[in-house]
């Protein structure tokens, strides 16, 4: 489901909630006794409906978790290291500050074959950063945290060629909004 579709779903549910509250508020214009038995029945229906819907959504969405599955081998591995305030992105491991400087200053952008399954191995040399991949149209496709001392593995299959931007999605200091990286799919 696209984020805009999720927004529409939310908007629809929010309007339903607001209408229910409005109708209940308007009901006070005509005072009446509450039929607690009927209210109890309605509550039961609400309970089972809500629990059922939530369980169904769990069933639908949990298999779509983005975490890497063992046994599936990616076509490419790309190493990413965040550091205030840039992402070093390279097909060779980045293990030192000097290598990070070299990649961010001189290395050409990584190029990934279209349609290949790529695994980004993401870490940080200082604070927490958020490694997020934006499509050539500026849509957020996926993300994972860049955390000091840990490597998060994000797998993506990018079927559209073009320039992909990496923005930082975890607040990391005074130039957080300028922290970025880039790679190409072709």
């Amino acid at each position, binding site marked *: 489901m696209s*984020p805009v579709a999720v*927004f529409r779903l*939310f908007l629809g549910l929010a309007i339903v909630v607001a209408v229910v509250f409005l109708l209940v508020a308007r009901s006070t214009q005509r005072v009446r006794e*509450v039929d607690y038995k009927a209210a109890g029945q309605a*509550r039961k229906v609400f*309970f089972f409906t*809500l629990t059922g819907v*939530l369980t169904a959504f769990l069933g639908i969405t949990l298999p779509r978790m983005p975490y890497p599955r063992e046994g599936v081998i990616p076509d490419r591995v790309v190493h990413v290291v965040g550091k205030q305030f840039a992402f070093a992105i390279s097909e060779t491991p980045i293990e030192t500050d000097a290598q990070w400087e070299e990649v961010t200053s001189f290395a050409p952008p990584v190029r990934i074959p279209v349609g290949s399954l790529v695994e980004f191995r993401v870490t940080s040399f200082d604070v927490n950063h958020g490694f997020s991949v934006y499509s050539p149209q500026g849509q957020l496709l996926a993300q994972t945290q860049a955390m000091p001392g840990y490597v998060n593995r994000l797998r993506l299959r990018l079927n559209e060629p073009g320039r992909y931007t990496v923005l930082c999605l975890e607040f990391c200091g005074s130039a957080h909004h300028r922290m970025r990286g880039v790679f190409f799919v072709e």
Partner: protein
Amino acid sequence: MADQVVVSPVWSGVEQQRWRRLTATWMLVMLLLFPVLLLLGAFMRIVQANWLPTLLPEWFYAVMTLHGLGMVGTWFVGAMAAVSYVLTQYVRPSRAISWGTLAATVLGVLLLLVTTLVGRFGVGWYFLYPLPFYPAGVWPNWATWMFLFSLAILGVGWTVWAVDLLRAIARSYSLRVALAWHYIRGRTEPEVPPAVLITTVSLISALAGFLAAVIILVLSVLEWAGTGFTNDALLMKNLIFFFGHVLVNITMYLGVVLVYDVLPRYSARPWKTNRMVAIAWNTVLFLVLFAYFHHLYMDFVQPQWVQVLGQVASYFISVPAAVVTIFSALVLVYGASMRWTLSSILMYLGVMGWAIGGVAAVIDSTIAVNLRFHNTLWVPAHFHTYYLMGVVLMLLGFAAHFGQEVSQQSENGRLTKIITALFVIGGYGFLLMFYLGGAHSVPRRYAVYPQEVLQGVDYARIALGFIALLFLGVVLYLWETGRRCLLAFRTSP
């Protein structure tokens, strides 16, 4: 042993007056801080709208830190003070401790003001480790120390306050009774008011959260004092989000205490504890400890079963809230001989905001959705919904009720309608811009939007129009309620 309730002696008139003065003081502090902090939020949207292009971004982040910490702290202490006042019907908390906490809070806030506005300390309200130790040349060392010190002062004050309220409850009810476990077993005696039950649940959770905060502070100081000790970033993240999640949620629950206690007075119908209410709030006590995992979905190294547990807990914690509290609030009002005043309207709208914010939060707590919503504007969208349009309205409703009760001044019905309209249109319009930003991939916590997400600038500009309406509503509200609280302060010895 049979469960017993030790009924507290009725307060003397002088004691009541003293509680009113104390509560009026807390309400005035809350009502003074609210518009100031709201303007700080407006300042952030002005910067994001590119209307202050020469401003250094570190000022944006320092203000962001102050706005977040200020709002979270203000509504927590406001809720604690209001709930303490409500609980004096049943138990006897210490006034001295509440005054002491007020002093600690004022001192902590002053230190935070210096830390952020002089020291330019900008780490966000939950100060994610190890950012406080990586200033990137912006804030000096003393600012980090002062920040940790101010948190320690606030933490000690708030913990003592929470412990004292629990002590007062435990003195009249045993904790087992206060948690209404006998209702779950089918007994209704001794009677436990919902305010006592929910406050007990909230404060036990609060103490767990404060314990996490103490561990964070100790570990941070250990590392920063040059002992050679280095913290584990994932452990610190878990601790920080546990603390933050619990603090925000219990503030919400304390707001709900006020609704349970005050709204029935306007609908002329009782709202009592029963088996279902007892089960619901005990379930919340359990699930709130695990729901925080949803803040760490994007930390892929966290064990997968923990991530699944986070989604399950986040989904099902909404069931007791919706089926018991929100549904019961609707039954309470449906067809009632309702007295619609500023207080009852705001409380009712607060429950609605809690429900709508809850829908947005449940959506975001879906791992597959969070992949594209995490740390976008969807996050401030949903937490501002159940804060600004939820607990804040509940608390403003309580302050209006309190001011009215003490001052006995009649309400201006026309002004009430105008304030309500401004709050609803300004508040939800402001939120809509956040939601649209989130749906269109705009990151949160950006002082300046880069080319890829320039739509964020337009959303910020439109949001400012709605903020202006909201602010006007707040000013009118302060005129109506603030002066009544001031009168309550002056007329209580």
